[in-house]
């Protein structure tokens, strides 16, 4: 239980220097941002290092920030070190025009479907993924539905005929 967020940050900065930025600790979880091409190197280091030992991949997901120029898509990894029971959040930002990010499937078998899901909803192109196809949506879908440019239907819209939906009308 000796591993602390400060120690992790120190180890990572020693190794990678300027590649890693944005160290934060929201709700106690160390959060950092890696340059796009370094996500796999950082994760490999976190995995292999005898002190850090982040060998469990909890989650991969993405977030869309349409207003951030050239870093619209964020890929978020949650990693866990079971021995020291400490978690870490790693973020990588990619432009929506070229959302190529290296895959983590060689490191964690669980990354396979998580990356497929992230691709399915956000269109992140995981370079080197063995089978990057849609997983939850239909194969024919030609857009990435969780992106912010696809808003949900306005619940206050009035152009629908309510009678068709079992509400209102003259019954």
């Amino acid at each position, binding site marked *: 239980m000796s591993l602390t967020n400060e120690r992790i940050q120190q180890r990572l900065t020693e190794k990678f220097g300027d590649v890693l930025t944005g160290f934060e600790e929201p709700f106690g979880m160390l959060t950092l941002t890696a340059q796009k091409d370094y996500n796999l190197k950082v994760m490999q280091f976190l995995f292999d290092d005898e002190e850090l030992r982040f060998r469990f991949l909890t989650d991969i997901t993405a977030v869309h920030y349409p207003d951030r120029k050239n870093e619209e898509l964020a890929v978020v990894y949650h990693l866990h070190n*079971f021995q020291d029971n400490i978690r870490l959040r790693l973020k990588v930002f990619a432009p929506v025009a070229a959302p190529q990010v290296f895959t983590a499937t060689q490191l964690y078998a669980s990354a396979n*479907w*998580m990356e497929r899901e992230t691709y399915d909803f956000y269109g992140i192109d995981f370079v080197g993924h063995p089978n990057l196809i849609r997983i939850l949506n239909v194969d024919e879908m030609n857009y990435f539905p969780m992106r912010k440019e696809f808003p949900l239907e306005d619940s206050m819209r009035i152009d629908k005929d309510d009678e068709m939906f079992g509400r209102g009308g003259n019954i």
Partner: protein
Amino acid sequence: MLDQKQHIKLPEGSIEKNTTTLNLGPTHPATHGVFQNILEIDGERIVSAVSTVGYIHRAFEKIAERRPYYQVTPLTDRLNYCSAPINNMGWILTVEKLLGLEMPKRVDYLRVIIMELARIADHLICSSVMGVDTGALTGFVYLMTYRELIYEIYEEICGSRLTTNIGRIGGFERNFTPVAFQKIERFLAEYPAVLKEFETMLTRNRIFMERTQGVGGISAERAMSYGFTGPNLRAAGVDYDVRVANPYCSYQDFDFAVPVGTTGDSYDRYLVRNAEMWESLSIIRQAMDKLKDLPSDVYHADVPAYYLPDKQDVYTKMEALIYHFKIVMGEADMLPGEVYNAVEGANGELGFYLISDGGRSPYRLHFRRPCFIYYQAYAELVQGSMLSDAIVCMSSLNLIAGELDA
């Protein structure tokens, strides 16, 4: 002959091939849910498997981006619908963590009771369905009676049975009634004998053991690589339990063991689940004892800005009316922030990754669904095994379609 062949239009390579393609699912009774496995079988031996999921994908993450926080709770019901209260609590705890709300001890203990009941309800289904899939229907029908009793307890607390929407941000919507406590006591009194009987029937049953031992085994290392959590990981020998690793809801006040297996096969998963049911019973017992020392009228925290007030107060008090209006219209002041919160779901670590920009609904909400993550190991688990073993392996993993697809 040649003409006929052209007329049928067989897929390329299908004449030469020595294996058979078999669709296990999406509506096969043994899948216990809507998902498909395309198996290549050589006789009865599985050569390879491809899993297809997404049949009941309902885009909850997208829907949640439009809903005020308190309206997300019913969405979480429909993830693992066998233990909906744990999902509800997981979501509520996430929001409370974001807002920094502290719950009174009594609320924590009531939540622990309801979560452990849900865990028992989930595990008893899984364990008894394993019996069904190996040919023993009796245990299933017998244990169902007690799931029914658990559902009656839910009903007494929140009014619904399967998709519970139990609890509110800041506590519970109403206090537990005396009848609810009576029913919990009845459950605690009757269930141990039933579970004992069930275990007597299956645990050392020769047929059951031969059908499950060595079936779908996985090493601890592979299980971790595949992101297994919960009973499936513990069956492989890794003692990771979110309740112990990152205690939430005052789980640190309780004394319980984390059962682990060794081989990670279907039999070990069954044993771990059964052992966990005993631990859950003990936790509920401890919680009921702890409740006796606490004031019996506390069922929510004093956080009027976030806790949906009693309807009676809304009609009679100005402040309650204002807060009610603000919460219902999604105008409650949510704090911006980024939070990951996990609870020990019945299938493993159920995580909620929430990004709030301070608006009325989450900016982004992601569910870490344990089922979805460990189901990808299925192809590896069944490769080279018999078709009937694949069925047992599937039921021992406790796959819930709602949680697979979100």
